[in-house]
Each structure stands twice: as C-alpha cells, then as structure tokens.
C-alpha cells in the first residue's frame, strides 16, 4: 500500500507536466480544430531555453522558467503567424501536414544547433527529500506540482475572467459569429498559441529539472501522450486536459511500478484507441451530432 501511495505521488508530478502540455493542445484544438503536432517540440525548445539560461547565463530557477515561458510563447505565435495562418481556409489535413512539417523543423533545427547528444540539465534546485507519513516527496516534485497548479489557476482566471478569455471562448464556440461581433479572430488565435506555448515551455523546464536530461527528440513521446491526455479528458475542454493529464501520468507510473515499464507507452496508446472508439468526445466532452 505504501508503494501505491508513493507511486501516486510520482504519478501526480508526472501528470502535472502532461497536464501543462495537454492544455496547449486542447486550447488550440478548441479554437482552430488543429492537432498542433509541433506542440511537443515547443515543450522541447522550452527545455533548451531553460537549459541555456541556467547554463550559459547563470540564471536561477524562476528567472529561467519565466524566460523560457516568454520565448516559447513568442515561438508559438511566430509559428502560428507564418505556418498556420495562411492555411486558415485550407483543408484540415493540409494544416495537419504543415504542423508535422513544423515539428520536423523544430526537431532537426535543434539537432543541427545543439547536436543529438543528451545533455544534463543543471540542478539549480537542491533536491532534498521530505518524509511525510513514510512517503518520500522531493523538493522538485513539490515545485513541479506547485508551479503547475499556479499556472493552471492563472490560465483558468485568464479564460474565465478577462476580456481576452471571453473572446477566446466566443471564437471557440463559433468563430464567424465572433467575428461579426467585432472580435479580431486572428489576434485571439495568436493569443491562444501564446498561452499554450508558454505553458509548454514551463513544462519543458520542469521536466528538465525532474529528469535531469534533455535532448532534441525529447518532445515526441510526451507530446503524443499529452495529446492522448487531452483526448481522454475531452479535447477542447480546459478542465478535461488537466484531468486527462493527471490520469495519464498516474496510469503510466502505476504500469511501470506494477507491470512492465517497456509496455508503459503501449498502454497509453491503447487507452487512446479505446477512448476514441468508445467515447470520442472524452470523459468531460459533450457529444456533438453530425450536421449535413
């Protein structure tokens, strides 16, 4: 039982990282119905920015986190403006292929500039272990959990309470109607990419700290899993992404702990296929009837 709770703690910290990435997927999908394949790579770039800030500029954890978030957000907006905006009226498959192209570009661009080798992330936070009722929680785990929680609350505040958030919700419900009401849809879409990419950048720095290593291909698997998380929770719904992220994180940790860590990824993809077949709208999503 003790191992179970211990694994739950590990699962929650991993899950909060997946949730941060999944939020970006879900917001972008909610607004322009695009699976942003490059999102996992923005998370990777975020990790590399954090690495450079700490390693080369000697920044502390929080300045590095904020810089990584800001630069990732700018990168996200830039990608949207250059690669996705011209395709606003193209078929969804065309935009999806473009997103795959952007993902390839980011991966290979980083491979070119940083090389393929795995780098160790500088440990700026000393990793003391706390013992609570026989369970071990590391300072980094607490930090990850707290940062993720603060960011999620902040996001919820922006989406629900600010004018821009209201515009985001309007565009995601009906973008042409929103445009008729005087909302600048292009700006709202850019802002969505800004928020989502900032969260992905934060997740990148947190993961670098947690796992200690970063490399240019690190975004592929977590990116896909975070997407699974978004679908599981109900894509397009912000609470769904958080729920899905924590579920995937916990499932993955439990499978590694009690089963075979080799099949961990297969289980996650299995969940994806099951949920797509049984309830494509996800746990929290609403089923929408197809219109002719």
């Amino acid at each position, binding site marked *: 039982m003790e191992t179970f709770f211990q694994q739950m703690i590990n699962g929650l910290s991993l899950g909060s990282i997946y949730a941060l990435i999944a939020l970006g997927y879900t917001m972008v999908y909610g607004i322009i*119905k695009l*699976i942003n394949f490059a999102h996992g790579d923005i998370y990777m770039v975020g990790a590399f920015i954090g690495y450079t800030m700490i390693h080369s500029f000697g920044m502390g954890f929080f300045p590095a986190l904020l810089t990584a978030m800001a630069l990732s957000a700018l990168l996200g907006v830039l990608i949207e403006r250059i*690669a996705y905006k011209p395709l606003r009226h193209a078929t969804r498959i065309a935009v999806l292929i*473009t997103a795959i192209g952007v993902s390839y570009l980011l991966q290979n661009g980083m491979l070119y500039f940083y090389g393929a080798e795995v780098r160790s992330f500088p440990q700026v936070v000393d990793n003391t272990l706390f013992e609570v009722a026989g369970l071990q929680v590391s300072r980094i785990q607490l930090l990850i959990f707290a940062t993720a929680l603060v960011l999620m609350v902040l996001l919820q505040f922006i989406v629900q309470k600010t004018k821009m958030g209201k515009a985001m919700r309007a565009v995601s419900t009906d973008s042409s109607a929103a445009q008729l009401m005087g909302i600048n849809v292009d700006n709202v879409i850019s802002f969505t990419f800004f928020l989502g990419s900032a969260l992905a950048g934060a997740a990148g720095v947190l993961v670098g700290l947690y796992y200690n290593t970063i490399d240019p291909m690190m975004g592929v698997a977590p990116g896909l899993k975070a997407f699974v998380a978004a679908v599981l929770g109900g894509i397009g719904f912000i609470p769904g992404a958080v729920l899905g992220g924590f579920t995937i994180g916990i499932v993955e940790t439990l499978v590694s702990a009690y089963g075979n860590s080799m099949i961990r990824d297969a289980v996650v993809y*299995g969940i994806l296929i099951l949920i797509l077949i049984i309830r*494509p709208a996800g746990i929290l999503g609403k089923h929408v009837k197809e219109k002719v």
Partner: protein
Amino acid sequence: MKLINKTTIGWLVVAIAGFLLLQLAVTTGIISAYYEITLVTILINIILAVGLNLIIGFSGQFSLGHAGFMAIGAYTAGIITKYFPTYTGLFLGILAGVILTSIVALIVGIPTLRLKGDYLAIATLGVAEIIRIVIVNMQSVTNGAAGLSGIPYLSKWPLIYVFTVLTILLVANYTQSSPGRATIAIREDEIAAESMGVNTTKYKTIAFILGAATAAIGGALHASYFSVIRPGDFTFNKSVDVLIIVVFGGIGSITGSVVAAILLGFLNVFLQPFGALRMIIYALALIGIMIFKPSGLLGNKEFTVSGLLRLFNRKSAQGEG
C-alpha cells in the same frame, strides 16, 4: 473489353522499357553498387507511397501508421527467410506478411475508420507505436530493440522492380474499378456517398487493408535487401517520410507518388553531405508545399498510356488535316 489492346500493350512497353533502361544503366556502371541502394530505396518508397496514397488520396482517410504495417511485413519476411533462405521462403514470407498485416489492418480499421480526419490520424499513429512496442518486447522472436540481422540477401533490384510494377498495377486498377469509384466517392463527400447507397465503412476498410498490404510488401523487400532491420527503422518518422512523398507528388495521384519518390531519392543523394541540414530542408519544403501549392507536383493528374495515345492521334490527325 479485350485484355490485349493498345492500352495494356502500351503499359507493358513502358514497364519493360523502364526495366531495360535500368538494366542498361547497371551493366554499364552508370548505377554503381552505391547508387543501387538509392535505386532500391526509391523503388521501395514508390511501393510505400503508392499504398499510402490509396488510403489518403483515394479514400480520403488520413493514416499515420504506415511504418507499423511496414514493420509487420519486414519482420514476418525476415523471420521466415531466416529459416527458409530460398526464393520460395521469400515469397512465403511476403505472403505471410501481407496476410498478417491485412488481418491487423482489418482489426484496427473496422473500429477506427469510423473516426474522422485527424482523430483517425492519431489512432493509426497509436496503432503503429503499439506494433513497434510489441516488436521490441517479443525478445525471443524478434530479438527486441537490437533488431534482426543476418536476413538472407534474397531480393535483388529486378525482383523489387517487378513488385513495384505489380503494386502500381494493383492500386491503379483498383482505383479504376467499381469499388475504387465508390472509394473516390467517399473521399469527395462521405455523407453524399452514403446516401447514394455506398457502404462507406466497407470501402474505407478495403482501401485501408490494401494500403497496409502494400506497406507489408515494401517492408518485406526492405528486410531482404538490407538484411538488417531494427524497430527503430519503423518509427513515426518513417511514416512521415512516406507521407512527404505522397504530399509532394500530389495527394490522389499515383503518377505523382512515383515522380516524387524518384525526385526525393535523387535529392537525398545530393543532400547527403549536409547531414542534419537535409532534414531541415525537407521540413521547410513540406511547409512550403502546403502553403504555396497544397495540391503537390501533379495535383490529382495521372500519366496514362491511353492519354498519350490520344495525344498522338490528335497530333497525327492534325498533320493529315
């Protein structure tokens, strides 16, 4: 319709002429042993791209799982030819690979093909990853992550050429057949096709299985030409490589896939010295094509012998007139 008519003879001439041209290039040493690898890669890529084009271009379903099906074909043929290192073994291996892949595609296809567009893409991507993870974990059969080595070198380029021609023939004829027309109707408008009485699930599944089966042929030939296969050869990146060929050539054009596979094959040779920069150029090209010419090189135009004959006839008629 007679089997022997101008069109079929024309196609036969094209296929044989292509073979003789390659044979000439190989015997005169224009295609050296090094470039023979390029030739084989191009041929296998044609098989893969034409198969994927059937799924994406003709049935309009977006599959990202081609590498998974290719892996099943490669591993089945690899394991069987290791026990029976003869041509019978190879054909048996290819056949077994095709059958196994078709079964997997059927099981995967029936539930997932109900999904639309990008959801299907993600589901097939998940399936391909699961196939790869299963291969990594079947240590006793597949030798796990280290991969299979010492697969007998059975397929030479002429054999691969024959399979390439057969694959193109199969896919081209299928798209011209009555089920093929139904499949194209689904691509154009699924709801309209359904209301005209087309069993959409059935034809989508058939196209999906046919595409997967050709991927298995490509995989099997890959295994028996290169002799070494690793699960790492069949990742998501492989699926994207094939996708790039299909998109570059034109979604819905078999001729386009063939032309694109050849062009990108040459491009690869020229960009080889640039290493990582090559992939950056690839990625930029993919984005550029989508933004500026989403229909690819050929759109959905096809090269046909009958079209060529018509052109000739028109020309000669003009000459007489």
